[in-house]
């Protein structure tokens, strides 16, 4: 097993807070994702992040009097693709109005779905086989964005507020899980798995940092094994998977403290304060508005035919779970490694390279260690296979292979050509032996510590000699070959 496995596992292994004895966590997740469409949900304005404020707007997404919505067919299609990817039933659905006043909502109602959502009853199977039920995944429009100026940036203290309506009317799907999650680890795994499904299906770029994926967590606790559902709080403003874990942990502990002191949490929306590491009370849900939902009369029902659903199913790309199985079968790599490559989308490249008959371990090692770059589209499977073949044959050292792979990612082409251009030539064993002999002669003290010292000395000195050799060869020597020669000379 190579180093990266341990390293990756350590960095990613969540520190699971043990809830105090006797308490169980209950979490439901509501995830909003922006659909990856060219235009907004009800008008022709660009669905684009980062434009100048109020430049992607028109009468419809500004909710001007007399304007009307026209449903974006691609958004509906993407929502249904996601529904099928989550194993949902795709139903005839209708849009509804959710009525409440808010300045960043141009019509003072949100067009969403209520009692007849597009997708119902699905599930996400996590890497360890744990199943989280999906209650629904419905289509709705996004709101604009308010910026509060002065008074610490809070709406009630602000001197004035500015509203950017570029985001108003951007198509969203809200994925509502059942309250099945019992651990922080599963909550995080759920969001990560959903994110991979969204990317794999092209439904959304699912970037939490840009807000194209937003996670709210409904958190409650209960005495272990009681089966009851106690008062929950909805945590908003969570902007990373890591924050999700922290927020749930804090909130669960807050609930437990309240219950154990004879008090009780009250149902409310709370906001995660990243710097403070705590949740803060928002608007209480008890006095929340009555949203007065009713069917949106300006839009017609969405009625997918059986043919539409069948076509979506037929065109469904392999989902991350299936891809992980395929890669595991082909490489035998551990779950973290497989998960990482699938998340990067490099599993297809790996499988294609392995299909050319090269060492699966080496393929995996090269990709995981040396291809952690945004754009690796120029690396073809034949080139990768050729690279691994050269490495296996000893034509390239590991260090050289890494550099050549970098060249492939940057420029594409053939690994032999890049190796030649860099002046990488296979250093034959004779040459290497001569060099080792010279270094032994130059450093007799170190050599005796290597041959006669304790394990610590031996290790240190192996590092010393390897370093010297690498320096002398400008990194072109094959580390494994060096170790072999050193070992042979010490014992011989």
């Amino acid at each position, binding site marked *: 097993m190579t180093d990266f496995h341990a390293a990756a596992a350590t960095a990613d292994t969540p520190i699971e807070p043990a809830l105090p004895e006797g308490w169980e966590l209950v979490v439901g997740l509501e995830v909003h994702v922006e659909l990856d469409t060219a235009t907004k949900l009800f008008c022709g304005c660009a669905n684009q992040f980062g434009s100048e404020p109020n430049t992607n707007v028109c009468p419809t997404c500004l909710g001007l*009097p*007399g304007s009307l919505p026209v449903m974006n067919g691609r958004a509906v299609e993407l929502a249904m693709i996601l529904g099928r990817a989550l194993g949902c039933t795709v139903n005839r659905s209708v849009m509804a109005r959710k009525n409440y006043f808010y300045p960043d909502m141009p019509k003072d109602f949100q067009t969403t779905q209520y009692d007849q959502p597009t997708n119902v009853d699905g599930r996400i199977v996590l890497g360890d086989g744990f199943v989280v039920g999906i209650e629904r995944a419905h289509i709705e429009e996004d709101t604009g964005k308010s910026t509060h100026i002065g008074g610490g940036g809070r709406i009630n203290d602000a001197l004035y507020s500015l509203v950017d309506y570029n985001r108003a009317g951007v198509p969203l799907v809200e994925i509502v899980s059942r309250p099945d999650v019992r651990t922080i680890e599963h909550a995080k795994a759920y969001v990560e798995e959903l994110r991979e499904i969204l990317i794999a299906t092209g439904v959304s770029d699912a970037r939490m940092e840009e807000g194209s994926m937003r996670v709210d967590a409904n958190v409650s606790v209960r005495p272990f094994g009681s089966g009851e559902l106690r008062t929950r709080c909805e945590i908003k403003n969570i902007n990373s998977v890591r924050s999700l874990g922290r927020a749930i942990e804090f909130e669960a502990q807050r609930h437990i403290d309240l219950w154990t002191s004879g008090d009780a949490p009250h149902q409310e929306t709370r906001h995660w304060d990243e710097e403070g590491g705590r949740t803060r009370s928002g608007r209480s849900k008890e006095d929340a508005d009555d949203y007065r939902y*009713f069917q949106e009369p300006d839009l017609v029902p969405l009625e997918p035919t059986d043919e539409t659903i069948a076509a979506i199913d037929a065109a469904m790309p392999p989902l991350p779970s299936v891809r992980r199985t395929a890669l595991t079968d082909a490489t035998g790599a551990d779950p973290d490694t497989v998960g990482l490559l699938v998340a990067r989308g490099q599993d297809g490249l790996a499988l294609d390279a392995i299909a050319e008959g090269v060492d699966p371990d080496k393929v995996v090692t090269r990709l995981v260690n040396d291809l952690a770059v945004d754009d690796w589209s120029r690396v073809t499977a034949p080139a990768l296979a050729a690279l691994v073949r050269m490495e296996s044959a000893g034509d390239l050292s590991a260090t050289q292979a890494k550099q050549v792979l970098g060249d492939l990612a940057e420029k594409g082409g053939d690994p032999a050509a890049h190796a030649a251009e860099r002046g990488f030539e296979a250093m034959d064993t004779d040459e290497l032996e001569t060099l080792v002999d010279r270094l032994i002669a130059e450093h007799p003290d170190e050599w005796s510590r290597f041959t006669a010292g304790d394990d610590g000395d031996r290790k240190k000195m192996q590092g010393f000699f390897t370093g010297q050799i690498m320096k002398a060869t400008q990194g072109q020597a094959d580390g494994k070959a060096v170790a072999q020669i050193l070992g042979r000379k010490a014992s011989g």
Partner: protein
Amino acid sequence: MSAGAIAAAVRSGQRTAVDVLDEHLARISARDEEIHAFNLVTADEARAQAEAVDAAVAAGDDPGPLAGVPLALKDNMCTRGIPTTCSSKILEGWRPPYDATVVNRLRDAGAVVVGKTNLDEFAMGSSTENSAFGPTRNPLDPTRVPGGSSGGSAASVAAGFAPLAIGSDTGGSIRQPAAFCGIVGMKPTYGAVSRYGLIAFASSLDQIGPFATDVADAALMFDVIAGHDPLDSTSIADFAPQATASLDRGVDGLRVGVVRELSGGEGSVEGLSPDVVARTGEAVEALAAAGATISEVSVPSSTLGLSAYYLVAPAEASSNLARYDGVRYGLRVDAPTTGEMNTASRTAGFGAEVKRRIMLGTYALSAGYYDAFYGKALKVRTMMMRDFAAVYEQVDVLITPTAPTTAFPLGERTTDPMAMYVNDVCTIPSNLTGHPAISVPFGTGDDGLPVGVQVLAPALDDGLTFQVGAVLEAAAGGAR
């Protein structure tokens, strides 16, 4: 001079559009101070349009079927750069950045928009007395109301300010004022005319339609404004208007039903004036004389229409009118917090009837009341659809009075909302079902004021309403 005659004269070069416009602007100057049909007369824009029409004729081009015809537009339809108020203080000064689809279609057909007409605020009313800018008077008797909510449009045609006008009809807002003003008014099948740019009152009921002095002119305009619009999702995909082609088909062999519950028959709604019932009966006889077969039919749920309407329409309105919050356009009354600013702006900007309906609708949709009110109203609506579908198995068209009475005096019903609402009892069913209906003048009441008779037809059979309307008009001694 009819719209058809004006267009023919302008197209052939016998008259200029500018000349026609000047004649109508002169009439407006002479009498609109008294009538108050217009919120705004757009003389400059109209002149530019008329000149463009004349230039087209001079260049040998055809400016279209409504070439040079002056047209009055209800002030709830968006006109680019021209104030559009819905006769509400809350929209005072707002200039839409776009034109309604219907405005584009009319301009493309050569019509010349002379101004924006008065209405009950946000089209909520039956007398045009609910306007924030003062009432419109009936040109036939200025002590009487012109009906509503499209009272300004109806009055502008009746007063000769424009041969054509555009109205919107949510519960009778075209047909009832047409009846009161002695002209023709037609509500198309829901989805026949694009609502894009019509400021919504109740989206599932609103429909734009024509006012004209005769059925042929109404048909001419209908054929221009009807048709699919991709900007309105409820627009019918392949609607081909054929009103003008239907005019001369007569009623020989046509099966005409008289709706007992809406015509003073057994189990009828109350409040139908005897003279109105009598004129409706004479209209039916006229159709029989022209070869139609007559039968009395029953649509029991039609009597529930009024109650259902006054839940559905306010419910949708409470949501449609939420956007007037002082944040983006129109009236803003400043206050310490956003919520207080919303409330202050809406309190100052909306009139009493609008507030009443927003409250009604908010209540009808509220948790705990939805099923008893809005939910039940939807069921009645479904029931009416079924009942009307069943009756159209037996007959081709239906006849009812348009309004229970002739035009009533200004101020008579302003303090009694229920007395005002009852005006719509015969017109509301077509809005709830989405079916077309036309009101045609047929004689006068005991007070000498015009009576309107209504022809109802199944969805998409808009042509039938014109076809039967033309026969009624001829029998009444109308323009044709």
